[in-house]
């Protein structure tokens, strides 16, 4: 087959250049990352990426299965037709899917593309990293003397997820969100749709994950810990400060309970906010949401989720944890 086109590098050229480049640049760049802070940031960056990748792969495979093999009629039967009722059902379904938030974003996008009401898919997106069994068990283990923390976390996170779904239903506008396009086309085998979706979703989401991981690694290393101690005593400021820290550190929801437990100078309410906000709003999630649903969506949804989560945490903490 003859092709009249200008030269574009093919995979062989890319591999060859990469191999030579790696050998040559190894000397130069290995020494450039020499300060302890940059070394630690590099370690944390690779760690966040390697921790997230298996879950992202799982998420894109699941979302590709949804896109290729599960007909929209299944979702119409599985979920209540009224979106206001589908929101709590989808929120509770999050309790069944374990894993990092990296899996929930592609799955949620795929659900939307198959006709699930965006409000319900968003409730699932928020709840599944926050209330799945691994997270709740790890919270019990991290707070052995305060079992109420795990219960509070479950209830607060579920409520916030549903509240965000209902808020979207009431106030959300179609032009704010870019629903991933229908993947199924006539004449194309479903297996091809599956593979093409998985490939595209991984490349797309993976790129954004890298941005989130880089931001989180830099913040993890360069955020000074001293100022945290000074706000620990102030009732509301400490809650907002820990919520903000949760966003910056972007720790996986399975592990954030242990980090929370180590922040012992803070009130239980502030720790609750840290654990509720983290799985719902962090650098990885903001990046993934921007990539999957568009910047217009992320700039509205992420801050709104943050505010709702902090308010509900304050309320739950004031009533149940003091």
């Amino acid at each position, binding site marked *: 087959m003859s092709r009249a086109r200008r030269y574009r590098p*093919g*995979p062989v050229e890319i*591999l060859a250049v990469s191999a030579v480049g*790696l050998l040559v640049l*190894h000397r130069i760049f290995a020494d450039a*990352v020499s300060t*302890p802070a940059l*070394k*630690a940031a590099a*370690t*944390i*960056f*690779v*760690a*966040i990426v*390697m*921790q997230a990748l*298996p879950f*992202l*792969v*799982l998420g894109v*495979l699941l979302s590709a299965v949804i896109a290729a093999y599960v007909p929209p009629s299944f979702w119409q039967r599985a979920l209540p037709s009224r979106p206001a009722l589908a929101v709590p059902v989808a929120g509770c379904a999050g309790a069944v899917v374990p894993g990092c938030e990296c899996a929930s974003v592609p799955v949620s996008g795929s659900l939307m593309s198959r006709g699930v009401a965006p409000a319900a898919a968003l409730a699932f997106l928020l709840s599944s990293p926050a209330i799945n069994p691994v997270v709740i068990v790890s919270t019990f283990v991290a707070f*052995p*003397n305060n079992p109420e923390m795990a219960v509070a976390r479950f209830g607060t996170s579920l409520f916030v997820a549903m509240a965000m779904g209902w808020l979207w239903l009431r106030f959300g506008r179609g032009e704010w969100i870019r629903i*991933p*396009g*229908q993947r199924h*086309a006539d004449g194309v085998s479903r297996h*091809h*749709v599956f*593979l*093409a*979706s*998985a*490939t595209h979703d*991984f*490349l*797309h989401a*993976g*790129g954004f994950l*890298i*941005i989130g*991981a880089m931001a989180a*690694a830099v913040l*993890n*290393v360069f955020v000074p*810990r001293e100022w945290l*101690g000074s706000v620990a005593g102030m009732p509301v400021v400490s809650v907002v400060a820990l919520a903000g820290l949760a966003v910056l550190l*972007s*720790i*996986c929801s*399975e*592990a954030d309970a*242990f*980090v929370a*437990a*180590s*922040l*012992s100078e803070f009130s239980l309410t502030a720790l609750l906010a840290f654990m509720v906000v983290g799985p719902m709003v962090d650098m990885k999630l903001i990046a993934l949401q921007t990539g999957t649903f*568009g910047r217009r969506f992320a700039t509205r949804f992420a801050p709104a989720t943050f505010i709702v989560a902090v308010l509900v945490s304050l309320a739950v903490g004031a009533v149940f944890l003091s």
Partner: protein
Amino acid sequence: MKKDTQGVILLLVGVTVLRLAWGDQYLFYVAEGMRPFLIGSGAVLLGLGGYALWEAYQGSRQSDPALGRDPEEHASEHDHGHDHGRGPRIAYLLLVPVLAVFIVAPSALGSFSAARQGTTSTAPPLDVDLPPLPPGQAELTLRDYVVRAVWDDATTLQGRRVTMTGFVTPDPSGGWWLTRMALACCAADAQASRVKVIDTATDLPADTWVTVTGSWVQGGGLRDPAAIPLLHAAAVRTVPVPRNPYE
């Protein structure tokens, strides 16, 4: 981005993941339990990459009808045509971790991260008694030692000789701490346990791995998350970096 470029990126990421998981290098970054998931996802990425390359060599220049339009991608690339089958350009960022692993090969977190930390331990369950140490010279993790010393009034440590392995972190107020980090999921959540080593003349550079044999002495503080217990050292021996630097 053409199909074959997509395939190469997927292959490179898959190879990187497998490279880390095949040996022990993944232990610098994530918990040991992640290994099967890393291997599985690496294999999937190799499969997807191989399929993309195979498709590219099948040689179709036509649009891929399976993928829908991606408006944001169009806006960013300023394309005017219908352009299926093109992967998103942001995927080039996936090469960054590939380069990081193969060029920089970051090591496990060390004294820099351990020194930055505020608290050093958290209280164990109140109603559970810590089991006594096995007879003779006992080998402990640093976290175990800290919990026993700070939260259990060192009842299980009194008069016992213990051995612990960790790395050196200089104490700003003089001397050094024996440190080891523990992670739950990945290095981003790693926390350090620190023990102040006293009565030793050794002056070791930061991040040196050592095995210290000694016994507990009073003075480190009790029942305080920021307390750093003391260890009176009888012997300090440098050792190679353990297979898993984290506890």
